[in-house]
């Protein structure tokens, strides 16, 4: 132990260099993980249900954007073979001035019909972190996403005013790092009132009675489930064929669309990852190799004392392992510390920039140890090729 501490002390600058390199890899990797989680979360959501909207344009947003989906259409969808569960939904931008932008950070109102179970196979209920989820019969009650709660300073029991209507926050969702982090979930009845309040044209139509619209018709879309053993894409096609006036998103097609719309982020992600590996990896390998080359005289002396290549190689690799592990762990700790500090600051606006997943941290440690050992092995091979006299001369 004393020897290990002394070795590590002798390598203090090397460890610091490795730590900085690994911190770079981990920090950039954590940002990439954050983006991956967002994309994967959305993908998982859309693959868990068939999303149906009314044909045409409307002010709905999100996965069920489109024209109005009247109650008659919902009943027709429920009658399509293979369908299991139809949940009417209203999805609206919280701020209508941002409705033309489908941004990744858009705050949305999600109104759900609480009298039927949510048919999404992957999210039968959004995960609640504090308080509770909505129950049938809840009115003027809302469950808010984690980022929304942070950025608006909301806790369970607080009041939230939307379109001059007051809601009690009954729950805060767990942080998912995906779209629900910015949701305000409420009963569909409340969401319909929000829709009417936000949409002057709809208000006018309802007031003049030009169109025969009743409250149950005010849906921007529906989440539709499928029976066990059914192919969701086939069920979606069947709905499109059998129910007029609806836009049906095939889960696989929506997933593809989502992925293509996030292609920029995927490319960015690959770029960040490559950059992290190149910069961090080069820094680490260079630091370890330089540390070995710096001790070339010591290796010459050891060989003069009778150390064989095998003994020397084992010694150097052992030291490299200890040094890269220590440097790697310090780098991980440094990155996590910095990440938490930055996220603490970003949380004031409901943002989270880093995700330190287990696979990232483990991968970074394994990567640093493997690369450090390889760099040390390369440097050692170069050193042992020299005669002891030459090594002593060069290191003088």
């Amino acid at each position: 132990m004393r020897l290990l501490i002394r070795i590590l002390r002798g390598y203090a600058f090397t460890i610091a260099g490795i730590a900085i390199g690994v911190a770079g890899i981990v920090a950039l990797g954590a940002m990439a993980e954050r983006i991956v989680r967002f994309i994967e979360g959305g993908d998982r959501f859309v693959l868990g249900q068939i999303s149906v909207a009314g044909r045409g344009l409307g002010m709905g947003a999100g996965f069920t954007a489109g024209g109005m989906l009247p109650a008659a259409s919902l009943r027709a969808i429920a009658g399509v073979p293979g369908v299991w569960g139809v949940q009417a939904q209203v999805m609206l931008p919280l701020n209508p001035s941002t409705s033309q932008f489908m941004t990744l950070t858009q705050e949305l109102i999600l109104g759900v019909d609480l009298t039927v179970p949510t048919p999404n196979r992957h999210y039968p209920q959004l995960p609640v972190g504090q308080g509770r989820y909505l129950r049938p019969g809840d009115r003027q009650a809302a469950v808010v996403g984690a980022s929304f709660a942070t950025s608006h300073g909301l806790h369970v029991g607080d009041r939230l005013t939307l379109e001059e209507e007051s809601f009690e926050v009954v729950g805060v969702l767990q942080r998912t790092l995906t779209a629900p982090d910015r949701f305000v979930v409420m009963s569909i009845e409340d969401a319909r009132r929000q829709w009417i309040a936000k949409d002057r044209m709809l208000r006018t139509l309802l007031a003049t009675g030009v169109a025969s619209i009743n409250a149950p018709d005010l849906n921007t879309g529906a989440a539709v489930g499928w029976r066990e053993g059914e192919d969701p894409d086939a069920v979606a096609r069947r709905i499109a064929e059998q129910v007029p006036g609806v836009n049906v998103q095939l889960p696989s097609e929506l997933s593809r669309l989502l992925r293509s719309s996030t292609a920029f982020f995927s490319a960015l992600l690959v770029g960040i990852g490559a950059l992290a590996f190149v910069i961090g990896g080069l820094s680490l390998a260079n630091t370890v190799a330089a540390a070995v080359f710096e001790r070339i005289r010591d290796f010459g002396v050891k060989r003069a004392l009778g150390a064989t290549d095998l003994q020397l190689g084992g010694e150097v690799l052992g030291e490299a392992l200890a040094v890269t592990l220590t440097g790697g762990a310090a780098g991980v700790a440094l990155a996590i510390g910095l990440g938490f500090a930055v996220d603490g600051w970003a949380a004031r606006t409901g943002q989270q920039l880093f995700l330190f997943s287990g696979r990232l941290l483990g991968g970074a440690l394994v990567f640093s140890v493997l690369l450090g050992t390889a760099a040390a092995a390369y440097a050692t091979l170069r050193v042992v090729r020299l005669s002891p006299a030459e090594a002593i001369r060069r290191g003088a």
Partner: protein
Amino acid sequence: MLEARGLVKSYRAPAGAPIRALDRVDLTVPAGSLAVVLGASGSGKSTLLNVLGLLEDADGGDVLMAGERVSALGRSGRGRARGRYVGFVFQSFLLLPSLTALDNVLLAGRYAGRRGPDVRRRARELLAQLGVQERELHYPPQLSGGEQQRVAFCRAVLNDPPVLLADEPTGNLDDANGRVIWGALRARADAGAAVVVVSHRADAVVGADAVYRMQQGRLQPGPPMPGGGTP
């Protein structure tokens, strides 16, 4: 016994003809004797020591230790032979700065496969004999030049090597420390080792059993030794 036969070694010069550092060098140092090789800088005496100690390969010729042709061994074999047969004392001490004086001495034992309390006790005895036992837990930068050379000497002799090679061992020392190191080298020879010392100082021949002069890579019998002895 240490024996060299027809050693040849050249270095590539940046321009012009190669520099011949060893030119058909023959040398025999019997066990229990101390040979001194004198020569100016660049005469090839350090190269001779390096080749004798298997720190460097010769272009031709053989090195024999205790009758074994060690220069013909492979790289690992030469490494083991160095640990088994040879002890080195360098002009610039070459102690490892990250190790204490005691650990520097023990390093020689480690590569010879010797560990445990016996070798530790032996290392302490040697440090005591050279008068640096109080400094065993000090690191090289905390020691004077003379103390470092004494520690380096202890490291060189820890395994009782039959061959002891010293390259300008007193070159960086004052007279008092120089005398200590010379006395220790002489004592090793008296104990049965074949000791070779290279030096550029003519006064180094005091106490030698044989003296040689190195000039342009050639080894020749040196000047008469004080007291009238011959090489």
